[in-house]
């Protein structure tokens, strides 16, 4: 079988079985290098975890936190990861509803990224809590005090939104994956066969199963669409609902959603480009897919530029001196370099995507996507830490710099995300053969016509 898999797609018009082989090669057992990589990610996770335990034990004393930056890197990471999650749902749900064909190659990857990004994001409100052992007080549960959370608090909205989002995303990912797992089950042996047998729930692709599958998949997509818009709006309301200058703004919901899709699509690019090379998925995740994705990045980048302009314009137009002072500090204050670096990453670098060659050259796309990731992280950092630093009372202004703890936990979150993602990619179908086969003619077209056919290495 190995030989057959390695051959993969060799023709200009791949057959269904070739698609299967190619995809199954991707999640065939990994080699030493793969496990070293997973181990490396696990090490980063352990580092972050150790720092978290250290922080719980020794309190926030070992962080850079202090008055007035009550929120800083942790909430930045939270918003960053939640934002990352959004592009997955966009690609899998919204584009599904619109029957957009280029989603087929990358939607599973994006969805997987969504689930693990939400799972990573969900850790940060906990990491950030002063008394994490009491986090369950945010959840309504029967207790002798009859005391429940305050549903007025945007943080409770957040909890509901994020947990709903995680649940729906997991169900959406898993439901959509059942036929692919069943497909994999048929060729797998040993442990993997048991695993796929359990996870496929005995799927055989009968007409009855497909009929209910199509309906539930459609409805989940229909639910996920408003959900994806609501979740980041709710996250943005964590800020917009307050009275803090720099946060208190009505444009936050669309602005955050656009930013989320921007950063998410960029991270899909960041993940897909090395993956398609390492896992020999070039013919399933084609340049065509990447091109389409990078157009979304370009579009959202321009939307972000517009949002920054609008945000600043609104502040200038209202003439509120407190807001003006905050924005003045944001642009020209002691930490203004964060803002200008963000503008460079989010507004200037993505303009390269106007050039078709950049959109079809993976190395360029990779570089741009890395810049966008950095820029979008900085954007949240500037909004959160910067606005808190320059608050209503000038005597309480103080700028924030992270300590080793926050940096290690941030690195650990990337390790945690990449570890989960890598394990998933090697054990579960990271590309959806079902959908690729459904849209085989578009794939053939992509392979054959739109871009010069390149043989899998």
């Amino acid at each position, binding site marked *: 079988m190995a030989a057959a898999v390695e051959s993969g797609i060799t023709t200009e018009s791949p*057959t*269904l*079985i070739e698609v*299967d082989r190619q995809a199954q090669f991707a999640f065939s057992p990994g080699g030493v290098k793969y496990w070293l990589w997973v181990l490396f990610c696990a090490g980063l996770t352990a580092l972050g975890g150790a720092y978290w335990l250290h922080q719980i034990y020794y309190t926030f004393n070992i962080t850079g936190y202090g008055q007035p930056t009550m929120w800083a890197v942790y909430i930045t990471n939270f918003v960053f990861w939640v934002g990352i999650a959004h592009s997955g749902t966009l690609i899998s749900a919204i584009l599904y509803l619109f029957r957009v064909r280029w989603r087929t190659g990358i939607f599973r990857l994006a969805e997987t990224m969504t689930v693990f990004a939400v799972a990573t994001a969900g850790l940060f409100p906990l990491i950030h809590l002063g008394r994490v052992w009491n986090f369950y007080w945010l959840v*309504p549960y029967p207790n002798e005090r*009859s*005391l*429940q*959370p*305050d*549903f*007025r608090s945007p943080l*409770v*909205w957040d909890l*509901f*939104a994020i*947990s*709903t989002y995680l*649940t*729906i995303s997991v*169900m*959406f990912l898993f*439901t959509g994956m059942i*036929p692919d797992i*069943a*497909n994999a*089950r*048929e*060729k797998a042996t040993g442990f993997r066969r048991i695993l796929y047998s359990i996870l496929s*729930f*005995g*799927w*055989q*692709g*009968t*007409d*009855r*199963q*497909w*009929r*209910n*599958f*199509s*309906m*539930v998949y459609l*409805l*989940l997509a229909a*639910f996920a669409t*408003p*959900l994806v818009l*609501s979740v980041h709006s*709710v996250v943005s309301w964590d800020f917009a609902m307050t009275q803090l200058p720099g946060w208190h703004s009505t444009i936050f919901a669309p602005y955050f959603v656009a930013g989320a899709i921007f950063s998410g699509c960029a991270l899909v690019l960041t993940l897909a480009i090395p993956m398609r090379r390492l896992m020999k998925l070039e013919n399933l995740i084609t340049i065509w897919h990447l091109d389409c994705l990078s157009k979304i990045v370009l579009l959202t980048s321009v939307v972000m530029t517009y949002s920054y302009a609008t945000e600043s314009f609104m502040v200038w137009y209202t003439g509120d001196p407190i807001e003006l002072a905050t924005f003045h500090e944001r642009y020209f204050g002691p930490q203004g370099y964060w803002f200008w670096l963000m503008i460079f990453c989010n507004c200037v670098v993505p303009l390269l995507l106007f050039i078709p060659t950049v959109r079809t050259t993976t190395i360029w796309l990779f570089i741009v996507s890395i810049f966008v990731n950095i820029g979008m992280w900085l954007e949240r950092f500037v909004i959160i830490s910067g606005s808190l630093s320059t608050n209503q009372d000038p005597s309480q202004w103080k700028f924030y710099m992270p300590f080793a703890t926050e940096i290690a936990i941030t690195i650990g979150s990337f390790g945690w995300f990449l570890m989960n993602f890598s394990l998933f990619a090697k054990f579960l179908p990271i590309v959806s053969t*079902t*959908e690729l*086969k*459904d849209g085989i003619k578009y794939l053939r077209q992509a392979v054959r016509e739109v871009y010069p056919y390149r043989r899998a290495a």
Partner: protein
Amino acid sequence: MSEAISLISTFATDEDCARGIEALHAAHIHNFRAFYPYPSEPLLEAANEARGLGRSPVRWWVLTGGLTGFLSAIALTIGTSLEWNLNTGGRPVASIPPYVVIMFELMILFGGISGVIGFFFHSRMPVFDPEPGYRSRFNADKFGLVVQCAENEVSRCESILRGAGAEDIQREAAPAAAAHGH
């Protein structure tokens, strides 16, 4: 009923398979089951028509779940607020606008969960034993149509299937109490 025979036919494309279903439907043979590796639109439509079904009942599960979620969110938010009557920031005890977020989220959550449960329920999953006539290629690149018919009807069915473009037809003794439904 005489000895029942399963005819396991294999099709290369979804169009062929759909044609087979339509032909069986036209011949009033309804005791068949289809297997396909991906949800091809023409196939789904053909199968639905052949079985005389509307759309999947999973819809109702989702609707019920969504409504339950919405209503329980109303009960949860307002009920728990009235328990303590706490004043936060001068707002009324039960302030509806912020609760709408909770209602929306629970609606989605309950709707989604009950939809997936409905999917499992109506698909009779988990399936512990393979359906008769299932071939592993039906999950990869081939479309399968398993027709159960009496011995005397085998040749008619075969010809219908071949006419629709079946690549290969195998015969198999049907399980005794196989009742094909949906």
